[in-house]
């Protein structure tokens, strides 16, 4: 009995997020007059931070670690808590905390912000569940649990046409993708006779005539992953959803939701479809990821280079970064000792990316809060009025571009080095070329803020408020981005340990 209880406590990060969301929903429903934006934000932030603390504690205590008794499984093996799950739960909880804090100022004049907080927390719960999913059925349910609140969140500004339109498009593309994903799962089930990863893996070794069926199913699952991570060709929703959605939601989707897509991919493709067995059966999914990664990073970066609006540029850059992170799956080769390194590097990149990208979108949220326009030109001279926030933004931009001495440099460096050592020089080279392109558009933001003069002297008069919570979230994200540089050693070690458990 106590063993079962202990096993269930391993799920407490996800449970904490879900319970907080439920509590908010209950309060909002039964005492609608007493809710306040501030108390909602505080409660959700506390919930997210509590989840983060428990997760970090588990990581430090070695819970689910190979050395401490291995992964904890629940529900007949359908759920599995290990270092990988905890690593990603930490990303989700951090981003959630940042986003809800920032949302407090963003929705300061919104009529009913309560729904935002509960939806965000439910989505986060879904992500935490995705991280521990060990069966394709759980994966699908959790994926929908992330997606459904996300659609509502994108369309949260009901009176804003852009927001509503983006929400609808997101929903339609999402529905199609979910259908593809589900079809893929059913094909895999047909070929292997199981949904639990371990059993699927053993069945993959003896597919024989069913290899074609399983192969089509697996490619369709790749498609589902591509939707969640906003990778080509399932990326079409992303630019419009990120642009139309309220900026905190964009931050949430492009950082946490994307990472959720990756945790599924990392786990499903290493545990359910081990590369060696898959390739032996003629299903070289690493090749599929290599193609998707190459196209995604190129398309994302090249499209980002020609945008006029900062938020849309960030949307495309987010697609580009999905391409980089996909290298973690693409640059694998059967039995190579470098697999752990490259996948661990991709995880570390997602963690760093969680902070820098969230911070960048939250800066856009701040600009929207000030009401200064959306294009690069509108940001001209901003540093004179808001030097702290602009310095933080410069940190995000340079870190996203992968310039030393920011954390983004190290994560990208380890990622490309891992790819090269696994024999994927071309992929790393393409990534490097794309990084150069990205430097162009990221530096445009910095140039506008610090070097350019405002179009008119009164252009920046709109900056008359200091949204404290937004500032706090942006500065915190910037500090985290900088501190991850000295702290990169433990991060990459934890990530490689998480990856090692998969192989």
């Amino acid at each position, binding site marked *: 009995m106590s063993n079962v209880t202990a096993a269930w406590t391993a799920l407490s990060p996800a449970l904490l997020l879900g319970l907080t969301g439920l509590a908010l929903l209950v309060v909002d429903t039964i005492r609608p007059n007493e809710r306040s934006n501030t108390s909602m934000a505080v409660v959700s932030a506390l919930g997210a931070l509590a989840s983060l603390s428990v997760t970090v504690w588990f990581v430090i205590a070695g819970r689910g670690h190979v050395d401490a008794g291995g992964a904890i499984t629940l529900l007949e093996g359908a759920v599995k808590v290990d270092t990988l799950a905890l690593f990603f739960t930490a990303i989700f909880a951090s981003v959630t905390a940042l986003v809800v804090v920032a949302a407090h100022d963003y929705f300061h004049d919104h009529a009913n912000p309560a729904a935002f907080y509960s939806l965000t927390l439910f989505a986060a719960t879904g992500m935490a569940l995705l991280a521990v999913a060990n069966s394709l059925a759980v994966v699908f349910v959790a994926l929908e649990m992330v997606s459904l609140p996300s659609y509502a969140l994108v369309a949260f500004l009901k009176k804003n046409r852009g927001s509503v339109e983006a929400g609808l498009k997101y929903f339609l593309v999402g529905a199609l993708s979910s259908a593809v994903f589900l079809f893929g799962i059913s094909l895999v089930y047909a070929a292997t006779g199981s949904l639990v990863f371990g059993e699927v893996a053993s069945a993959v070794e003896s597919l024989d005539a069913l290899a074609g069926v399983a192969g089509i199913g697996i490619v369709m699952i790749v498609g589902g992953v591509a939707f969640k991570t906003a990778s080509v060709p399932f990326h*079409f929703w992303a630019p419009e959803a990120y642009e139309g959605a309220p900026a905190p939601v964009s931050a949430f989707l492009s950082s946490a939701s994307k990472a959720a897509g990756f945790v599924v991919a990392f786990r499903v493709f290493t545990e359910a479809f081990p590369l060696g067995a898959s390739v032996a059966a*003629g299903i070289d999914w690493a*090749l599929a990821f290599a193609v998707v990664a190459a196209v995604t990073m190129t398309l994302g970066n090249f499209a980002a280079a*020609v945008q006029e609006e900062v938020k849309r540029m960030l949307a495309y850059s987010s697609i580009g970064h999905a391409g980089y992170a996909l290298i973690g799956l693409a640059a694998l080769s059967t039995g190579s000792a470098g697999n752990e390194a490259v996948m661990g590097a991709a995880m570390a990149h997602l963690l760093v990316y969680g902070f820098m990208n969230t911070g960048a979108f939250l800066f856009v949220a701040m600009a929207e809060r000030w009401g200064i326009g959306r294009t690069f030109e509108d940001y001209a001279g901003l540093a004179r009025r808001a030097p702290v926030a602009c310095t933080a933004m410069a940190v995000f931009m340079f870190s996203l571009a992968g310039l030393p001495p920011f954390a983004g440099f190290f994560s990208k460096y380890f990622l490309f080095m891992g790819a090269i050592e696994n024999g994927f020089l071309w992929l790393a080279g393409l990534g490097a070329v794309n990084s150069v392109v990205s430097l162009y558009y990221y530096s445009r933001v910095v140039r506008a803020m610090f070097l350019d003069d405002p179009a008119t002297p009164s252009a920046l008069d709109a900056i008359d408020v200091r949204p404290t919570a937004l500032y706090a979230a942006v500065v915190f994200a910037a500090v985290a981005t900088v501190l991850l540089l000295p702290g990169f050693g433990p991060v990459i070690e934890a990530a490689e340990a998480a990856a090692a458990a998969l192989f």
Partner: protein
Amino acid sequence: MVDAFAYVPAVVLLPFFSFLVALGAGKYLPKGGAFGGIAATAGSFLLSIWIATAVAGGRAYDETLYTWAAGDQFELTFGALIDPLSALMLVIVTLVALLVHVFSLGYMNDEGETGLPRYYAGLGLFTASMLGFVVADNLLMAFMFFELVGLCSYLLIGFHFREPGPPSAAKKAFLVTRFGDYFFLVGVVAVFATFGTAAFAGEGSFPALAEAALAGSGDVWTPGGLGVETWFTVVGLLVLGGVVGKSAQFPLHTWLPDAMEGPTPVSALIHAATMVAAGVYLVARMYGFYALTPTTLAVIAFVGGFTALFAATMGVVKDELKQVLAYSTISQYGYMMLALGAGGYVAAVFHLTTHAFFKALLFLGAGSVIIAMHHNEDMWDMGGLRSKMPVTYYTFLAGSLALAGIFPFAGFWSKDEILYEALVHGLNEPLLLGGYVMGLLAVPVTAFYTFRMVFLTFHGEPRSATARDPEPVRWNVKGPLTVLGSLAVVTGFINMVPVQKVLGLEGIDYLHRWLDNEWGGIEGLSSHHYADIGPYSSGYIAGGEVPTVLVGAAVSLGLALAGLGLAWRLYNVASPTEHTAKLGGIKDVLYNNYYLDELQVWIAYRTEDIAGGSDTFDQGIIDGVVNGVSSVSLAGGSRVRRIQTGLVTQYATMLTLGLIALLVVLGLNGGWFL
């Protein structure tokens, strides 16, 4: 017992802190931050003495302190190497730096210069860089501090940046030494590529690996199957490029005379203990490598001997006090290079030591004269200063006697040993013998210009109003002069090899024993090890060692006295006149420094086309490619952007088509459809 070696980083860091303090808070401190610098260098000096004592106690230190990059092939590290050589050099550098700081109180503060925090910050960083260079335990670290030394010299030579001369001189010093450093940098990379390490000391150091490779027991990389010995010669010559630049050897010596535009204490520091010394020190530091390649040694010796004579002849006709000293510096470092090339490792270090003291003394003495003369440096406006500034005169005289190599002053012993080594090793080596002959010929020239300078400055009748009533100097000028003056007299006694050889008194060649690890040191970094692996054998004239010693010493002393005597006759008169006209056409050549500056400018113009070509290549091809890439990306980006039409039905179509494409590719690849 606290370990002295634990404080090695502090020796370097103390002046660095004084740099930070002077830079950050110099404005608010008394004397522009001078006291911080004095305290820091004094601290470093005391620590250096302590470290040297520890070495004398039979110990040595070779530790990697920080690994700043680690790869599969090799690691890039910072470390400290304390052996007899670096311990000795630490003491020299810190002592001279301390005295220069004190002297600066008189030269800069009392003269009411502005920008003092910048000055003291520069001195601090200069000292720190040189100390970092001295303790470096690998070639890359040495290179980095070598470059820092170059940067600091640029900052300090150009200290009076509002006047036209100093910035230009600073630029010249920077560019000319940089030219040599390019070769050095390539050499560093070559060392890494060849040996996979750049460490100076220990089993796995590159001199040790080179020795093993030549003995056939090791395996090293060489480009294109080049012979090991040829390749080592190339690497040695590449590193030598940096040495030639920094130590102002022919043909890269042209920056040094111009560098006299810097404040005089800075000149003292540059010439005696830091920048110029860095080159020679580097060769001494990696002597275990150079000793393996006879060709490099011969080149070093010949260049050194040639520079010694060549620079000395130019010093003969100069009118300005500091210019004479500048050429004497070039010439004296030529002697050190001659010694290194001739296998006289100890002799070179010996001359480095004595020269550090007497040249610092001469520069500070010149500084004292310049204060007295209200910054007029023309010797023809001086004269008769002997009675007005006795402390300066007697110390300057001691320095001059040392420089001229007159028995028993410091310079005599060290120069004599250099010439002796060159002679005994050169009897079988024509190139080396050539170096020896030139070094010998430079002796009377040196004595001549040195005493021409002394007589014109201090003797005879005053030739201008300022010389009749010079400005007095204070303790902070006289103090350093006295210390250095005493050292210029006695330093020679640390290594009286001729006396030992002639009288058979064993054990008075302290420097030999010191550098031979007799008290303490690191295996493989000792003078007898270098002698073992070196290519030279000794030959004697006049039937044996003792007669050779005596003949050599007598010849060089005789030549020095001859030069001195000529200067006495020509210039030690009440009102000396210029005698340069007697030189005829040579005079113009010497005045214009053999037209070498003009030659460099001419070469620069001739190479303009190459530079222009590279520029076209850079602008057209490189930038063109970069610009092309960006245009292509922007055009490509616009196309990609057009895919995003905003119509969700098209999205669904493209999404489906994309998935099918992926399916087909993987299916064909995996043979699912068969």
